[in-house]
């Protein structure tokens, strides 16, 4: 996993609440056995019309927002399914951070597994960023070390993040490797469980 320290990128406003994982990456793109290449399906029904032609009105299709690295979205971003294809598709498209007032739980978890930073800000802060991102300059800076987002006009907002998750993001650490460091504790747990709940063994 790639480390995340600081990002200066164009931010695209997506002022809709409850953007679900089916909108982020529709199911026809889930029939893959790979992680890469999902950018083509990102926001498919929002980005393309029925004939597969780009909809000029959709924010990520507008020249000003091409190559956006940050999305600013409405409440409850990422609700719906557990598909990790949602953060994979965002990352594959070049999005490295999403800012919203709230995220759905599983999506939020999945972001951290992949080095995509979900940033939670207050409603009025998200609104200000949306408004500014609609203007001529829409570069937003996110600094994970100091936990700050700097708006195009220079307003600085602080965000909360779990310290452990932050460290892992900063270093790009693999969770499995870390857990395997406590393998003896897992062994002990399993031995205890085999005695107290023998019906779960050798099933």
């Amino acid at each position, binding site marked *: 996993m790639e480390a995340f320290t600081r990002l200066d990128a164009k931010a695209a406003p997506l002022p809709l609440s409850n953007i679900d994982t089916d909108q982020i990456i529709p199911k026809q793109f889930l029939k893959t056995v790979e992680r890469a290449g999902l950018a083509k399906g990102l926001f498919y029904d929002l980005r393309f019309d029925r004939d597969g032609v780009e909809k000029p009105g959709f924010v990520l299709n507008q020249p000003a927002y091409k190559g956006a690295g940050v999305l600013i979205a409405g409440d409850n971003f990422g609700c719906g399914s557990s598909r990790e294809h949602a953060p994979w598709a965002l990352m594959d498209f070049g999005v490295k951070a999403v800012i919203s007032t709230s995220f759905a739980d599983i999506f939020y978890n999945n972001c951290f597994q992949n080095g995509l930073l979900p940033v939670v800000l207050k409603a009025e802060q998200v609104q200000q960023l949306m408004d500014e991102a609609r203007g001529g300059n829409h570069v937003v800076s996110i600094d994970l070390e100091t936990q700050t987002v700097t708006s195009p006009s220079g307003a600085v907002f602080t965000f909360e993040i*779990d310290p452990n998750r932050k460290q892992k993001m900063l270093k790009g650490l693999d969770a*499995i490797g870390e857990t395997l460091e406590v393998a003896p*504790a897992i062994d002990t747990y399993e031995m205890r469980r085999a005695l107290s709940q023998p019906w779960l063994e050798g099933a």
Partner: protein
Amino acid sequence: MPGKTLYDKIWDAHLVTEQDGEAILYIDLHLIHEVTTPQAFAGLRATRRAVRRPDRTLAVADHNVPTEGQALGIDAVADEEARLQLQTLAKNVDDYGIEFFPMGDIRNGIVHVVGPEQGRTQPGMTIVCGDSHTSTHGAFGALAHGIGTSEVEHVLATQTLRQKKARNFRVRIEGEPAPGVGAKDFALAVIGQIGTAGGTGYVIEYAGSAVRGLSMEGRMTLCNLTIEGGARAGLVAPDDATFDYLKGRPATPKGGAWEMALAYWKTFFTDDDAVFDREIVLDAAAIAPTVTWGTSPEDVVAVTGCVPAPESFDTPDKRASAVRALEYMGLTAGQPITEARIDVVFIGSCTNSRIEDLRAAAQVVQTAFLHGRLVAPHVRAMVVPGSGLVKNQAEDEGLDAIFKAAGFEWREPGCSMCLAMNPDKLADGQRCASTSNRNFEGRQGRGGRTHLMSPAMAAAAAIAGHIADVRDFLS
């Protein structure tokens, strides 16, 4: 010290250790399927890691499978990519020694139907699966939730999950529901009240006399929809209904081990003096048969009600979403919801494809049939049982004959039109009365319009040809 909630107790019983402020929880049962696992197994191979407990892992093929011709095996799958995913799963389970119910096996079906039906799902367990509706298994008093593919790989390699503890939320539903009202209506009413993000950061325990009064199938429906309210997991404390359901299932303990397990399971309940971070109470008698009008499961309305106006919502975001939803759904504010003309009826999915769901739908169909009514001529109606075993049992009870006589298609098990990854899809603009769990834009096919409702309500819609109040069909 206050007492513990059911969630606290399951959590404590599975805590292996803590590392850097994160809990490492032992996982008792890991269910896997073809869509969210290929990249996890690829990761294991790349890092040369083994599967720690293949014996605590079970695989099914459900999301992609066609709902006809399953006896042909992989040849029944026309779609190249779906076929590759199914073949990849078959190879992975073979390489790593994991038990697998392949397509066509009578035990195969939707992962959340299969686990309980086989008796793999048991009280006090931790259960995960790369599918958000894993919350279903909470009906047995198990802590069960969906995980992403990286976490699937983590569980395969370590049999544990790194977690932050959620907060406790109790939803009490008290009293007697009216005839024709059941678990699906309860669930939609709860989501309508708390919103799709209302449960975020919580585990919900369902309690109260109306919840106690539900069958195991009903409790599964309720817990299944918990994720649509944003909570990670839903729970119902185990009781005699739970134990009766489990007794004699293929994977439940037998003889002396049964008694031992029973004693253990009975320790999983919320203490009287436990404190919840949030609590709401609903009156079951006040809940009407409920349907959705929009493109989020929180967009609910009683079947006797009207499509709401966007202006009635309190934030600009919500108003914008409502305008968009009305346009997508082809509905007008203020119109009675029963005016919505239905093209397709889908009875199935891990929410409502169990035997009791099929019985409830069949009862409505049979009553209508005895009054000389069939599926409305313009409606395509289908029933997709949740597993091969459900299908068999329904056929033994003659339910398939009732459905077929009235004009329903009787299909083979799988997720089917719940997410339309297989050939069962809505066409652009088609309106569907569906017993599934998500009415998102395009969920059942691009441009498809989904109204969520109970199996009995979906059956009524099939006969009427529009959204209809099941209570008009029960006499």
